[in-house]
């Protein structure tokens, strides 16, 4: 019986969709072949969360993962990536409704998004909707443009060079 249900779930791999819903919102959806309480558990037990939050394909490793999933509880994730410095993410859970809804803030900067995850069960499956709302259009645009910041160090030097060129152009 178990073998059959495993086979079924492997055959039906669910699709993840992403949409920029508005100037300051991103929405991600995915269906899971399990009841909402099971999916919810995997989001709220730190030892389960850490098993999927930093998939290998991202090249990241989760160095530490603390998540006190209660209203007002804090989370703190620390990622490592090769030899570069680690990155720390932190914020607070502001809504925790068992098996149906989670809301948390991201507090590394004023431009951090508020993330809402809803778990909607239908016929034993769960539709998960993750919604990230940035404080402003500029914050989301900044996050997107921030990709420039992830470029190799040389691109940072290129930025500086362009600034220098601009400055010398202004003098001439």
């Amino acid at each position, binding site marked *: 019986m*178990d073998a059959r*249900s495993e086979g079924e*779930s492997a055959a039906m*791999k*669910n699709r*993840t*969709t*992403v949409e*920029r819903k508005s100037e300051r919102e*991103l929405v*991600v959806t*995915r269906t*899971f*072949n*399990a009841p909402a309480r*099971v*999916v919810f*558990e*995997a989001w709220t037990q730190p030892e*389960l969360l850490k*098993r*999927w939050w930093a*998939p290998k*394909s*991202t*090249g*990241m490793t989760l160095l530490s993962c603390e998540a006190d999933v209660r209203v007002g509880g804090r989370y703190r994730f620390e990622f490592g*990536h090769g030899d570069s*410095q680690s*990155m*720390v*993410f932190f914020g607070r859970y502001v809504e925790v409704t068992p098996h149906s809804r989670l809301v948390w803030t*991201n507090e*590394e*900067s004023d*431009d*951090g*998004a508020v*993330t809402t995850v809803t778990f909607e069960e239908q016929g034993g499956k769960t539709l*998960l909707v*993750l919604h990230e709302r940035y404080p402003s259009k500029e*914050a989301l645009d*900044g*996050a*997107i*443009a*921030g*990709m420039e*910041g*992830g*470029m*190799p160090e*040389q*691109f940072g030097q*290129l930025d500086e*060079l*362009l600034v220098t*060129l601009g400055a*010398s*152009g202004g003098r001439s």
Partner: protein
Amino acid sequence: MRASRSREVGNARILNYMVQYSQTRFDASFAALSDATRRGVLVQLGGADASITDLADRFHMTLTGMKKHVGVLEQAGLVTTEKVGRVRTCKLGLRRLEEEAAWIEKYHQLWSARFDELDKVVEELKRKEKVDGRKKRR
């Protein structure tokens, strides 16, 4: 331990690590910048958009010569051009739309990868529940 750029937050910072900018684009950018005229064109466009004719005049060049320079800058993604009527206008190019599309794609990859792993965790929890359920019924 702190991130160097405060504007990158949350998943954006993860994506920034994931994005592998191609060496090709990097080389193209530097090749484009190796020429004094092209650097001058960038400075000029930093002030205001300009037509190829304007730029040719400003740098005392033929139209053909300036077209070549602009072409190199365009290839490197440093300049975009748009033809309206008979005039081709040049502006500093950041490939904004392409960048957004590329970012959304990376964001999609991140969540797809996470959710595929989450599937495994969920399957394991389901199996456990079944086993526990059977135990309880005994």
